[in-house]
């Protein structure tokens, strides 16, 4: 296999206050199908290294597969990004990517791109728009790459959804060896979903391509799951259908894979993930208080938002409720059950203040 080369990009990054890093290695088997090529089973290996700083990130991926006929395929991608200083509000982002794809007895493809984006919003809801330019080198010569991208994302408790639209085009040397001529152009639309909860990572993507000039239209999709059996070991499975990735030189592929992942940093495993908790015993919202207390015949409450007047809660099934406007912020609450001692409501941290009183603390957003 031709050696896959990687060039380390030197980046100027702000000193990270809380850097995060992760190294993973995957090994497993894959069943592959490519148009015009016989189906085959292959041994697949992968590795990733991510270093995430406060304003900069470096991500790398390596993947290699070995088919039974001793034919190897290797691919690598290196991404570096840096963002502006704004903690909130619009923010710029500059990124660079280098990729290489090589295979036994075949020419290799390398590409390099630079992209600039404007990011708006935050992690919960946000978007970005930008464009880039680069170069792609393959057996037919060197091509100019240009691209545009618009993305939007939304994060829920443990789910994240990303919608993406991108435009990719190439300009390559014409058949006569003279000036550059139009090459491939296509537009991709995709939606991705990701969840990481209680030791299980799930992901799915669906997309469609409208192609012009020398490219093929069609749809693609993939699903993947990683089950963390131990803090540093996961069982991973994936299946999907991908179209040509022109900037990377990767052809259209259908695949099913199964393997193991080893991670340097621990992840919550399915075994030590906290079981689905029963509904919280004390819930305080802007509309009032709900308490789950079994075996009580009377529940009284006082709090800063009652001006420390004692109020009686109303029973509603297995719950005790108080309808009261509660302003956002930190609040102190105490309850008394069946005329007993005043104490913090169940599930809230007990705080003893400088007057010797014991209350529960709760923050209302």
């Amino acid at each position, binding site marked *: 296999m031709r050696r896959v080369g990687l060039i380390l990009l030197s980046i100027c990054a702000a000193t990270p206050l809380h850097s995060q890093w992760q190294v993973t290695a995957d090994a497993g088997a894959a069943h592959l199908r490519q148009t015009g090529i016989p189906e085959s089973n*292959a041994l697949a290996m992968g590795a990733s290294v991510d270093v995430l700083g406060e304003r900069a990130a470096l991500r790398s991926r390596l993947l290699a597969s070995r088919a039974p006929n001793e034919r190897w395929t290797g691919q690598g991608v290196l991404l570096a990004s840096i963002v502006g200083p704004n903690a909130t509000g619009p923010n710029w982002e500059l990124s660079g990517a280098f990729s290489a794809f090589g295979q036994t007895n075949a020419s290799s493809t390398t590409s390099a791109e630079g992209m600039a984006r404007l990011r708006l919003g935050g992690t*919960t809801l946000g978007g970005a728009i930008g464009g880039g330019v680069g170069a792609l080198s393959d057996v037919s010569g060197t091509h100019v790459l240009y691209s545009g991208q618009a993305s939007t994302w939304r994060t829920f408790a443990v789910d994240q959804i990303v919608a993406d639209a991108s435009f990719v085009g190439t300009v390559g040397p014409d058949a006569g060896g003279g000036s550059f001529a139009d090459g491939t152009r296509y537009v991709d639309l995709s939606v991705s979903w990701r969840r990481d909860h209680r030791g299980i990572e799930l992901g799915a993507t669906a997309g469609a391509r409208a192609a012009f000039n020398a490219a093929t239209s069609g749809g693609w999709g993939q699903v993947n799951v990683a089950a963390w059996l131990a803090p540093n070991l996961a069982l991973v499975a994936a299946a999907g259908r991908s179209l040509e990735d022109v900037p990377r030189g990767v052809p259209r592929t259908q695949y099913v894979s199964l393997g193991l992942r080893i991670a340097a940093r621990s992840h919550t495993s399915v075994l030590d993930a906290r079981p689905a908790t029963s509904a919280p015993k004390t819930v305080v919202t802007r509309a009032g208080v709900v308490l789950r207390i079994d075996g009580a015949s009377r529940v009284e409450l006082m709090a800063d938002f009652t001006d420390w007047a004692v109020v009686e809660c109303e029973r509603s099934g297995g719950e005790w409720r108080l309808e009261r406007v509660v302003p956002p912020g930190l609040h102190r609450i105490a309850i008394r059950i069946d005329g007993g001692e005043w104490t913090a409501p169940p*599930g809230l941290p007990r705080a003893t203040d400088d007057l010797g009183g014991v209350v529960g603390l709760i923050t209302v957003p």
Partner: protein
Amino acid sequence: MITRAATAVALVASLARVASAQDTLLLPGDRDASAELARIVSAARDAGLPVDPILGKVSYGVVVVHAPPQRIVAAARALAARLEIARDALAPRPTPGDIATGADALEFGATKAELRAVRTASGDQPVSTPLGVLAQLVASGVNAKRAAQIVTDLIKRHASTAQLVALGADVNADVASGAQATAALDTRLRGLTAVLAPPGGVALDAPGISATTPKKKP
């Protein structure tokens, strides 16, 4: 209970009138302590600090704890000092709610530097929610410095207020179930940070990686 409720209502009403007329005793039965409290409240108001927290503390001390008057005066004086520290830490333009919650966080173990870190991370956004979560975590047993690092890091990763509050509630529930506070925080944090962007919100995903069979030379 009726007597207590009536006392609370009457006390709050009298405390509210302090702002305009300082002839009402804040601590019924102790004129000297009441006068001292009135001076504390007046000084805080003149300094531009919110006085509702002080009045609430007095009400709490009288109605709930039945603390001795001098102890209530000491608590009110200490709270006024914390309010000033919180306002200074949360400058340049903290809201009254920010100042009050900051004073609460100081009471439960946070430091001025940690309040300042939360302000810096939040920009000009209100900070009462992250400070409230900070106070909750510290009250749950999490080391104050660690709790402040977590809260500021989550703010920089654009965690929503709902996510911050949910983290605090989950840690509280785990501690109530017997977990160590710091371990509970670490476990809950992994789940939350898995769906948050890195600080600064850098983009994800290296596209286009797949295992393929060889492409033949033309």
